[in-house]
């Protein structure tokens, strides 16, 4: 495998490493600040815990966005709606009598198939013709899926059982819900599984090759088109996981489930670097915690300004480091 990687030129060079020292130092300092804050103030700790829980949801959708971008250099505007549709499929399975975890895994399988089908039928015909055409197809998909879900299940509020129940744990004076711990564990688990897939399996290597050096990969026998399709399938699975974790955090299911999350997930993905799965998680958790702390302590930033503020900070980061915190700088060869 390493011979294969070497042939395609995927060996990592030291200069390519995405995490630069200043960024690492800044992140470390932020962690220290958070820990000190949690120890010294109860409300600080509570806001941080809540922020981590919400941030895990942003991170899991951001992961799906990053996966698709890494594999196909496309921003999938329909990612949130695909995730939302997956949750409705799970809801329907629950209505038909499946248990929660049965429905969970069946939904992931359905999402995988749907992701692949969408890539093959809708994206493949246009992906080489025009960047903007692909973007528009995903926008059309966004609107189409939203319409289909509203038509089939209606726009009103529905209720699903929570995967991890309602149990609460008390750490000092801070209450942590088992649901939130579950979400965090699943998100980090997804990153780990993804990492193992990409670093240690042939499939993962083939997918990386197909994304970075499609011509060379084709020459050594990688079926590039199928790798892209599988990339979309996996991203759809990640999106489904994100949706299934998002629903209990909102306590209700409605078609607008993923729309606010999509916005913050974009911010998280860009903040962490669009090609870095670890960046997506760091970005998501950072945004979740940051928004809660700012809402608590900075009084000018009222609820109307949360979203603009998050994006303003994001723009600030992009101006300083255009490829995001953990992203790799792209060298343009003339």
């Amino acid at each position, binding site marked *: 495998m390493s011979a294969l990687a070497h042939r395609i030129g995927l060996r990592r060079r030291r200069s390519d490493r995405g995490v630069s020292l200043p960024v690492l130092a800044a992140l470390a300092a932020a962690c220290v600040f958070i820990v000190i804050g949690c120890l010294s103030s109860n409300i600080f700790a509570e*806001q941080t815990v*809540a922020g981590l829980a919400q941030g895990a949801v942003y991170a899991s959708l951001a992961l799906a966005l990053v996966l698709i971008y890494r594999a196909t250099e496309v921003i999938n505007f329909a990612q949130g709606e695909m995730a939302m549709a997956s949750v409705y499929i799970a809801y329907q399975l629950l209505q038909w009598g499946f248990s929660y975890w049965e429905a969970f895994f069946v939904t992931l399988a359905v999402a995988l198939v749907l992701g692949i089908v969408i890539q093959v039928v809708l994206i493949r015909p246009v992906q080489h013709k025009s960047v903007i055409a692909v973007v528009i197809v995903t926008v059309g998909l966004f609107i189409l899926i939203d319409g289909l879900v509203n038509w089939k299940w209606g726009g009103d509020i529905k209720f699903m059982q929570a995967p991890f129940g309602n149990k609460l744990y008390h750490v000092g004076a801070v209450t942590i*819900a088992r649901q939130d711990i579950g979400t965090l564990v699943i998100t980090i688990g997804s990153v780990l599984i993804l990492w193992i897939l990409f670093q240690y399996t042939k499939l993962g290597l083939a997918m990386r090759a197909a994304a970075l050096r499609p011509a060379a990969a084709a020459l050594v026998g990688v079926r590039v088109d199928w790798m892209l399709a599988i990339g979309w399938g996996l991203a759809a699975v990640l999106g489904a996981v994100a949706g299934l974790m998002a629903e209990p955090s909102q306590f209700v299911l409605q*078609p607008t489930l993923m729309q606010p999350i999509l916005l913050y997930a974009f911010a998280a993905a860009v903040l962490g670097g669009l090609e870095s799965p670890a960046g997506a998680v760091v970005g998501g958790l950072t945004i979740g915690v940051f928004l809660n702390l700012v809402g608590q302590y900075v009084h000018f930033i009222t609820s*109307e300004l949360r979203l603009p503020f998050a994006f303003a900070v994001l723009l600030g980061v992009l101006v300083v480091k255009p490829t995001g915190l953990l992203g790799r700088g792209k060298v343009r060869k003339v």
Partner: protein
Amino acid sequence: MVMKGKRILVVLATAVLAAAVSATAAFGAHRADPGITKTSIHIGGTFPLTGVASAYKTIPAAESAYYAYVNAHGGVNGRKIDFTVLDDGYNPAQTVPDVQKLVEQDKVFAIVGSLGTAPGLATWGYTNARKVPQVMLATGDSFWGFCARKTCQGSTKPYTSGWQPDYPGEGRLYGKYIAANMPNAKIGILYQNDAFGKNYIAGLNQGLGSKKGDVVDEEGFNATDTVVTQQVLALKAKGADTFFIVATPGQAIAALVTATKIGWSPTTFLANVSAIRPFLLAAAAAGANLNGVISSTYLASPTTQPNLAGMKLGKAIIAQYAPALAADWAVGDSNLVYGMGVAWTFVTALQNAGKNPTRASLMNALHSLNTSKDPFVYPGITLQTSATDNFPIEQEILTKWSGGATGDWHPFGKLLTSGR
């Protein structure tokens, strides 16, 4: 020669006579308003069937069911009601073309029951300029009551009216209750950061009167937010022991569950737009502790007052004309009762508007309501409007939740006036 001249004279005279007759006929004839014929009357309304406010989509469904019931019993003075429901997704940019379509293409007689403050504000200039009734708006904004005689945004709006008690009025009731029963409460308010939320807070402060200082913190959220954890944590941290939730069902559920999850047990007040039983049950299923939560109502309850004539009628109407909603009725979805209450009021006003109603006579009827016979409102409530009062319902009763996760709202105290 003379014969020909005479013939011409006769023809001319007939022509003049015919012209004169038809002219008088045109002047004297009753020019009917659009949307109304001898056998039908066409009305329309815009509702959020999709989008952030779609929790209320059962309201137009209930209204349609009631009109179907009325039609099956001969209609109003022999006219069947044809109700067109359009989806504006709570977006005023969609409401405007929808209303234009209803008025200019479908040529409806009146716009009845449309939901939403911003959608109403986007279209009331248009409807009033064309003298199209835009009545029984499903929102508690006080504009609809005040602006029939007063100039608002440049002109009076005599053709627009509401139905339900206004939000400031409801806020006043809670404020007065707190001032009388819990004068040293520390109040934390969670509110939607728009006119809806701010109206409530204004009313609450008026009701508190000298106890206004009891409010220790106000935390806002956007209508599109799905999570309110940060705000609820902040309210708890400020030491509030009384929790005011001014939200629509989605965020209300989140607020109730979050409060329990963070280990906070304040005395909770809930705006009655979210006090719809199925949503409370869902909140309980997600872990909220509901016992003792206080709200209010102006509607009869299908679950705690099932033997009232109106509730029996409503159940029968749903079973016959909208069977898909039967489960909603059984679980106590007050949106259905609301819809029927509105429809009943419209039908009554139509009957009072005379054998051949016009838009003007409909508005007259709506501006001179005086009836306690609406079977869908809480027993004892009178719908009353006059030249100086354009708020049809101004009475509510406080309710308290008991019975835990399978409980219900139980009224306490007397009927209170929410008017000024």
